[in-house]
């Protein structure tokens, strides 16, 4: 199968989660003011090495996610640089009011790290999925939402967040991600990264769905269709210029996200295009409003057409 061949051409990487943990350790070793706050989640957050190396810089609050975020805000208000780390599903639902009031409204630059986001926990079922997180946080003022695609973006996001003066939410999964090509080896929160350029169809994706979008672009190329792939790692604030430019260059836009089709990246792009009078074939690929398919992340992606082949088909139908 073409997809697999293409995958092999990419350099193997680690899970973004592992990159997060390594990056945080290296930052925290240099800055004693950095704290990781966990809710019995250091194992799933790959923070055991952090805890071993920097025991004074990890704060365990136990299985109490509301308290996790309240405590994180308190620590930040007293001058600490806080990374509050918890599975995205709990962090952005159980403690949503703490995110809204204690962090965003009170305006303390806490870094909220949603681990095993989207459907990473796959077979554990919908209790453990977070396909709502981007939507709910998009509707909360004063918080940035970043969904890194690969190891480079994950590392850069964690570093950028350490300097952020505003609250940031970062989500990623636990699957090993290959190193994606990109036009420029630069990174800035709020500035989309172009993975490859094209002129027929544009894939605007975020997080772990950038990879299948890129695979689709590779297959489309063989078929003589030129596809652009944009990693829209920052969903809020959206890089509006990047979206408008892609829609200008290409005849169709497909958004891809490991998230509900409601309220996520796709609707953010749709709203922007519509309000700018841009009308073109447009499709939001994500997880629909239904009892989510069961299985691993890969199986769920397969079911909802988030694979290179399925996205290629979607593009052929649209462009």
């Amino acid at each position, binding site marked *: 199968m073409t997809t697999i061949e293409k995958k092999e051409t990419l350099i193997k990487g680690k899970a973004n989660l592992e990159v997060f943990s390594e990056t945080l350790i290296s930052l925290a070793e240099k800055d004693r003011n950095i704290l990781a706050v966990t809710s019995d989640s250091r194992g799933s957050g790959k923070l055991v090495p952090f805890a071993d190396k920097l025991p*004074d810089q990890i704060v365990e609050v*136990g299985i109490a996610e509301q*308290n996790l975020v*309240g*405590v994180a805000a*308190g620590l930040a*208000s*007293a001058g600490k640089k806080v990374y509050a780390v918890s599975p995205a599903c709990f962090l952005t639902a159980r403690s949503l*009011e703490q995110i809204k009031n*204690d962090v965003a409204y009170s305006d303390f630059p806490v870094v909220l790290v949603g681990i095993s986001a989207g459907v990473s926990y796959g077979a554990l079922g919908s209790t453990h999925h977070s396909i709502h997180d981007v939507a709910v946080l998009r509707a909360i003022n004063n918080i940035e939402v970043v969904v890194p695609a690969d190891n480079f973006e994950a590392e850069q996001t964690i570093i950028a967040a350490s300097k952020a003066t505003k609250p940031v939410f970062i989500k990623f999964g636990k699957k090993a991600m290959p190193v994606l090509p990109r036009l420029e080896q630069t990174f800035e929160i709020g500035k989309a990264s172009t993975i490859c350029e094209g002129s027929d169809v544009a894939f605007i994706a975020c997080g772990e769905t950038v990879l299948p979008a890129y695979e689709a672009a590779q297959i489309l190329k063989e078929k003589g269709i030129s596809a652009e792939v944009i990693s829209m790692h920052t969903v809020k604030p959206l890089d509006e210029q990047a979206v408008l430019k892609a829609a200008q260059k290409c005849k169709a836009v497909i958004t891809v996200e490991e998230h509900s089709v409601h309220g996520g990246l796709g609707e953010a792009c749709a709203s922007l295009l519509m309000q700018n009078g841009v009308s073109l074939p447009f499709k939001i690929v994500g997880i629909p409003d239904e009892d989510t398919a069961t299985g691993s992340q890969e199986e769920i992606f397969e079911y909802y057409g988030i694979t290179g082949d399925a996205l290629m088909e979607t593009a052929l139908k649209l462009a």
Partner: protein
Amino acid sequence: MKKFTDLELQIKSVEYRLALLKYIKIAKAGHTGGSLSCTDILNVLYNDVLDVTPESFGDKNRNRYIQSKGHSVEALYVVLADKGFYPESDLETLCKGGSKYVGHPTRKIPGIEFNTGALGHGLPISAGIALAAKKDEADYKVFTLLGDGELAEGSNWEAAQMAAHYKLDNLVAILDHNALQITGTNREVNSPYPIDEKFRAFGWHVVEVDGNNITELRKTFQAVPEVKGKPTFVIANTVKGKGVSFMENEKKWHHGVPSDEQYELAMKELNGELERLSAIKVGE
């Protein structure tokens, strides 16, 4: 910090109550009963304990006050004005379009540490600040004011467990124990009792005080934290609507706004108390 006599603080409490009613009356909105019940607590904290002034507010090592029962913001606004954070006349804009003096605390107001108003947030936040102080080996204290109805929020208990676990003896939670919430008494709505035993079981040092008695409050707040390694829980027994007899212990005054007639009555009663206390002062 200027040292006030008990009598001077008693006079201040009456002045605060007069002022907060005035601004609630102008705004035609406010949380009257709970502001009146915690007035003496805020008075003693700001005039005798915290040592927070507009000049020291930027200090990393300042004592912190987090008002978890954010709805009683009128009492806080009046006290902060008295402390010089802004002119009291600013409060004429309370709850008006374009005013930063909204109906719950926000950091846009000088002197306020956190945006509160959703109940159940102050204790986790305060535990976080107290933990930061421990990490920094700083000796400031963190005070937070909770409502008794508010205790039903589960997040309090998450923080209560954690504060004891981390031995946050620099943390003092004060309960405005007026025994009323919106719908009725705490006992009727969803009983929090026995509050003292619960906090003791959670590993806290618990003390009880008459929360409308300046002398008692001063003694208690000066003494805390008394026990090394334990956070302190102060059950301050108060009267909701304190100082205005027809508002006292009446649930409807939770967010009742007085009519012109009721306002006159309230002013008369409080001014009478003010005269009585001032006469004692002159006699001293």
